[in-house]
């Protein structure tokens, strides 16, 4: 299975927009609307770049990454935050070894695709 991108966001419009942008650059995209959905995908063996929103109902983005760390589901997964929060909250301090990048919404489409493509090369 090749490496893909998993987008985790409770906002369906963000999921659709990111999917459209990345698929235009021939990047395979999967989407889920919650942290629980993300953990389920990782348990099923997803490998690739995970774009995670921070503010979500239930598990927020940080709790989701912590759950992935606790469940030893982070091998071959690069986490990038995709969030409207310009300044990260303190929870990130505990997880910075697992979060390689931080992209703020609204984002430039070309830049998003370029950053994601770059990190996908790290997984080859």
């Amino acid at each position, binding site marked *: 299975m090749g490496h893909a991108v998993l987008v985790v966001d409770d906002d369906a419009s963000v999921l659709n927009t990111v999917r459209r942008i990345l698929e235009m650059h021939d990047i395979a995209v999967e989407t889920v609307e919650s942290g629980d959905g993300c953990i389920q995908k990782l348990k099923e063996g997803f490998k690739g770049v995970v774009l995670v929103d921070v503010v979500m109902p239930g598990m927020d983005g940080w709790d989701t990454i912590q759950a992935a760390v606790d469940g030893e589901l982070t091998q071959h997964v690069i986490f990038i935050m995709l969030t409207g929060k310009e300044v990260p909250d303190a929870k990130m301090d505990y997880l910075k070894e697992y979060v390689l*990048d931080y992209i703020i919404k609204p984002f430039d489409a070309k830049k998003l695709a370029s950053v994601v493509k770059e990190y996908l090369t790290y997984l080859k």
Partner: protein
Amino acid sequence: MPKTLKENPNIVIIGSSAGGPRILKSLFTGMPFLNGCVLVVQHMPKFVNESLCGMLDGCTDMTVRLAEDGDKLERGHVYLAPSEIHLELEKNRAIRLLQGEKVNFVCPSVDVAMKSVKKTPGALLIGIVLTGMGKDGAEGIQYLKEIDGITMAQDKNTSVIFSMPREAAQTGAVDFICTPNEIREKLVELLGVMTPVNI
């Protein structure tokens, strides 16, 4: 077999965290063969180590390699700290990888690497803190300044997350706040450029 350096080498220690890989790429792209040894501590998962190393190696005339315990420092080389183990310098000549508790919630820690540098006559000691969350590197920068080092932090506009550079700057021990391009230019200006035959 690495040559033993006759003189104390110039040493640069760079610390970075979230957003670091793309900032490091920008910093090292076009970096000539510096008259010094560069150590990079990037917070990252272990499986990314080799990929980041290979990416940086393709950007610069310098040789980029993953640091190993006992490595003797060579001019024109960049040593990337591997994940899950602290990196220290032994008498500014060799690399030591040491198991230990996380510092600032990370291992390796920028502070640990920077605070292992010894004041040495005739050598430039340079500390740089790039983008990232938290305060790792702030104590290290302060220490390097105390031993007459030269210190830099990335500017706010080009930082993906300004937390680490800000914490370093707030110590009052940062000499220059720069963009990655300006940091590269400053390193060339301070250290000078060599060709491998000059070694």
